């Protein structure tokens, strides 16, 4: 694999991580907040 291939793979992993992380942040983060709100 060339350096360019490694760069493409790295970018792809980055895209995959963002597409995973942003929804997780909203959903899990939202549930954590809701949990704290409801416990009050």
């Amino acid at each position, binding site marked *: 694999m060339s350096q360019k*291939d490694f760069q493409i793979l790295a970018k792809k992993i980055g895209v995959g991580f963002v597409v995973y992380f942003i929804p*997780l942040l909203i959903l899990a983060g939202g*549930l954590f907040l809701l949990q704290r709100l409801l416990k009050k």
Partner: protein
Amino acid sequence: MKIELAVRNKIIKDATISLFIYALPVVALYVYYQINGGIFTEKSLTLQTWLTFLKPLFENFRTWGLTVFLLILGVFEFGLGLYDNKWTSSERKIDIVCFLAPRFILTPVLAFFSLKILPVVLPGLENTFSWVPFWGGIFLITVADDLTQYWYHRLHHQVPFLWLFHRTHHSAPYMGMAMASRQNFIYTILFSQIYLVATLTYLGLGLPALFVTVVKSIITLSAHSSIAWDKPFYKYKVLHPIAWVLERVISTPATHHAHHADTTNDGVGHYKGNFGNMFFLWDVIFNTALISRQFPKSYGTKTYKQEEWYAQFLWPIFKSNKEGSPLARR
């Protein structure tokens, strides 16, 4: 090759709208608890009685049942001559490798992620969301899994450098149940939504995840199948109202076959849209939908050079030796 400005702007606009859609299940739960006087118990999620008998059914389907369903579907397709003479030995190799490999490799990878990585990254948070009611969990997992896959899929079509990781799924000149698993392995192993669902499962939403993933598997497999179960809904006028709802909510063979067409802008083929997997609703919301109730005359991609199975399966680790192939060494 850069992404077109209009496409980029639309991605940004639709991604912004998606942030609100992701928040909807949480908002729905907040409204539910407000209406119920804020009553909140931390007991573990229990399945309602009428669903109790379904749980082992769904568990079995997710483990061995899905494979059996696929094989039966495949036998039917083959028996009905739906592959014609397009299932050459080269295509058979790709389909079989793509069918088997994830079952042997992805399962232990996901297990490692769930059992070893998540407890380290999210210590002490196992089952912390077990208070979420079943319907809320279904809503959450549905959005988490399917909207995320919509985006993962759409980006692989619209962002130029990502396309070659997804091209294998579109290279076949036919449709069938094998298409659902015919993927470049790097595309599969980096499916964002499977790690997202695994994380939410660790956090306590395993039961709704079980139901959603099974239903989703059936819909997406059926949408790829060459057995067009939706045709009677278009043929008989009395079924047209049901067709209208079905084709806008879930992926049907007609809408998903359009996505696999080797043409676009002809009123039938639409590989520039129809990205939805379980729900076609996302395409309707983001205006990436084309509903024609017709089936394309041909499938695949115009740049296909019948590349070797190893290049289609593991590009860029292995490249193709076929001259002019996008998967060849540059």
